């Protein structure tokens, strides 16, 4: 449980009079408001096109919805039949879930940290989208960021993207990409820059099984 800071500690006791009252008021509002939420990268990336193109939703009658669903189902069956007929049934199901899901835990560098990394099906066989949700990562000073590394042969092998932690809670959700041909046994770690900015630096998060 976080303790509330005291105004004396924050600004010192030498501030007095009207200025102190002014700051005291803001101090109380901040305590009352609580922390602002950390928005997801999707929300932080800006307004979506649907916000400016979308029309006000109108209530759709159940019967209209049923008709729409029936029409969509018919179209889907027809489309699937068409695909199978034209490809000799050779299309492979890609599946909707991640092709790999990895639980990561903090090393001694960040013992309270943890993360889940998901690797999604590559569209072209070599660009594997990844999403990672992490918590408990300390904010790094300045412009320093964490880096996600593909681990092969037991060591950080190739970089897959960087991210920064901006929330005081250390929570972050990032979208990454592994632009490589993956192999069985590949894994990932998260590192922070070593002294002098050397890469791959110190491992901060590693697979739970490691």
């Amino acid at each position, binding site marked *: 449980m976080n303790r509330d800071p005291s105004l004396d500690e924050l600004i*010192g006791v030498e501030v007095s009079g009207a200025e102190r009252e002014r700051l005291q008021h803001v101090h109380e509002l901040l305590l009352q408001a609580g922390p602002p939420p950390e928005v*997801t990268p999707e929300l932080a990336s800006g307004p979506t096109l*649907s916000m400016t193109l979308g029309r006000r939703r109108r209530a759709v009658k159940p019967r209209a919805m049923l008709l729409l669903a029936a029409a969509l189902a018919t179209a889907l069956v027809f489309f699937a039949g068409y695909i199978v007929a034209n490809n000799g049934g050779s299309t492979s199901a890609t599946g909707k879930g991640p092709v790999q899901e990895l639980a990561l835990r903090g090393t001694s560098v960040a013992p309270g940290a943890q993360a889940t990394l998901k690797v999604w099906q590559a569209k072209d066989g070599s660009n594997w989208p990844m999403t990672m949700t992490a918590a408990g990562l300390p904010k790094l000073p300045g412009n320093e960021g964490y880096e996600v590394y593909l681990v092969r042969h037991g060591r950080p092998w190739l970089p897959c993207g960087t991210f920064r932690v901006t929330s005081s809670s250390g929570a972050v959700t990032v979208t990454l990409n592994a632009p490589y041909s993956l192999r069985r046994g590949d894994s990932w770690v998260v590192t922070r820059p070593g002294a002098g900015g050397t890469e791959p630096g110190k491992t901060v998060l590693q697979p739970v099984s490691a």
Partner: protein
Amino acid sequence: MRKDKGDMELAIEVPQPRLRAVPSEPAPPDPDPSDAELLARVGEHDREAFEILYGRYVRPVFGLALRRLGDRGHAEDAVQEAFAAIWRSASTYRPERGAAGGWLYTVARNAIVDRLRRNGPAHDAELPELTSAEAGPAEQAEGSWVSWRVHRALEELQPREREVIELAYWSGMSQSEVAEYLGLPLGTVKTRTRSGLARLASVLEGELA
């Protein structure tokens, strides 16, 4: 300057220099437009203004939605709907009727309440704000409004001021720990904290009094 009723009118005619008509040039864009100016532009479907307004308000709107809906997924949907509503209805905003922040709060709150109704009564049980025995509706509404304004005001701080304020208030760290964490002298952290609080006071004055 405003004229008092007792002021005398001067009856001396001062010859005015002849002015030549100069082709008017478009005014340069305001580098820091007010929320009201942005709303007026959004009312004319100016996407750039909408993006600036979105950047200023996405966290307050998300915070309000999260507070009312208690679920991040629903809150994200509510943010989409709230900004879509702002885009649609910005042209109805009248500055003489109140501050832009209050208008935006009302539009966002209505969009969130709409979503709350669509989620149905079963979802209400998850809402701590609605089930709290400690605060009535009036206090909840006031709390939401305070959070909204404070979170909006935080967007006005310089990043380095905002960083120390957020760490000081919500990380549980002491000022010394914040200084060590950021690798800054303690005096610098205190200076930034104080200047950040003073800037917040300036932004909030007149809004929450």
